[in-house]
């Protein structure tokens, strides 16, 4: 399962108004570590689909949101609950490390 893309147009609906916790992966095509970590996020997404939604936001195409959430390094992962950021993880990490960071939202 590949995490679906959100944009400035769909962000409110898909992320802010989502009933579930949502992890937004802020990424870009030119970011090597973003591409490297992407399959790991897809795995986490399919293994924990009942608890956590995982979506991708391209910072190149959606600069306003990148600015709003003060992204200065990617990949950056922000978990939203009821429209608020409750957790930020920065940088590509191996799956066990990411799972540990996200433990509160996937277990």
């Amino acid at each position, binding site marked *: 399962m590949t995490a679906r893309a959100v944009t400035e147009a769909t962000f409110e609906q898909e992320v802010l108004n989502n009933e579930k916790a949502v992890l937004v992966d802020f990424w*870009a095509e*030119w*970011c*090597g*570590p*973003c591409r*490297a*970590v992407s*399959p*790991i996020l897809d795995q986490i997404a399919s293994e924990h689909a009942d608890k956590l939604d995982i979506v991708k936001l391209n*910072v*190149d195409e959606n600069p306003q949101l*990148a600015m709003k959430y*003060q*992204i*200065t*390094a*990617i990949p*950056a992962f922000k978990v939203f609950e009821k429209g608020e950021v409750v957790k930020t993880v*920065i*940088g*590509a*990490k*191996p*799956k*066990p490390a990411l799972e540990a960071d996200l433990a509160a939202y996937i277990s």
Partner: protein
Amino acid sequence: MRDIIIIGSGPAGFTAAIYAARAELKPLLIASSVEIGGELMNTTEVENFPGFPEGIMGPDLMGKMQAQAERFGTEVVYDDVVSLDLEGPVKRVTLGNGETHEASALIYATGSAYRKLGLPEEEVLSGHGLSWCATCDGFFFRQKTIAVIGGGDSAMEEATFLTRFADKVYVVHRRDTLKASKIMQQRAIDNEKIEFIWNSEVAAIHGTTAVTGVTLRDTVTGEERGLDLDGLFVAIGNDPRTHLVHGKLELTREGTIHVEGRSSRTSVAGVFAAGDVIDPFYRQAVTAAGSGTVAALDAEHYLAALEDTASPEAAEIEAEAIDEGVAIDGLVRAR
């Protein structure tokens, strides 16, 4: 059990894989889970790798190396090594997913990791204005004022690259001359957005939720001064990644893995090392690739000797023959 496992997916690892695969050793290459391709994945144009007169993007070069290794039968695994058992004739490699792989020979080519400044603020501000990857994060510093710390090729490359986005890029270097190659130096010096701050090191990073500036200390006079910044990129060098082999393989004073002479043979029979993890000085894509070749040939030789006599002593005798100046090629052909 396999013949050979290669740990590392930079130029050393993939070149070793190309050679080992062409020797029909069916290598298994452990590429890591999120750092596949190694350091070159975070660089832009590579202009000094022979055979690419127009230059080639770092990630493209690594993609080609991987394709070449796979073409001859290298199996690539995207996981991290969590532990190693190097004693005895069977080398065991345990991965993050719990699997253990076994081989008669092991090539260790894990490269090096970015050196940190060693300041307490580093952890908190990392990713919040403090970055180790200009190609990843430069985009977020449009029209900002930033600094690059360091005086080598990577620092010059990053500073020059960052002028695409930033209005002003300071290069802070602890000496009054640069270690970078002349062409990279000149490119940075000629760039009007770049200003050099010589004989200075970072004593503190300012900011609670994001970087707002630094305290610079003059390395000659000890005098301190503040510098307002929106971002800070660190390129002060690398340290060999040896944490998995501490206490298992002999290391050098520089912290790299000790190898015998110009070979790749470590202090443990059947374990070979290549690339930045054995090289405190040159650290180039092409020297790492060359080093990977040496490791594959040494490993091939070791395996052949094992097979010939099924005794490790024989491998040592042949290894000594190489030390005495017998050409590897001659030995291999003679067989």
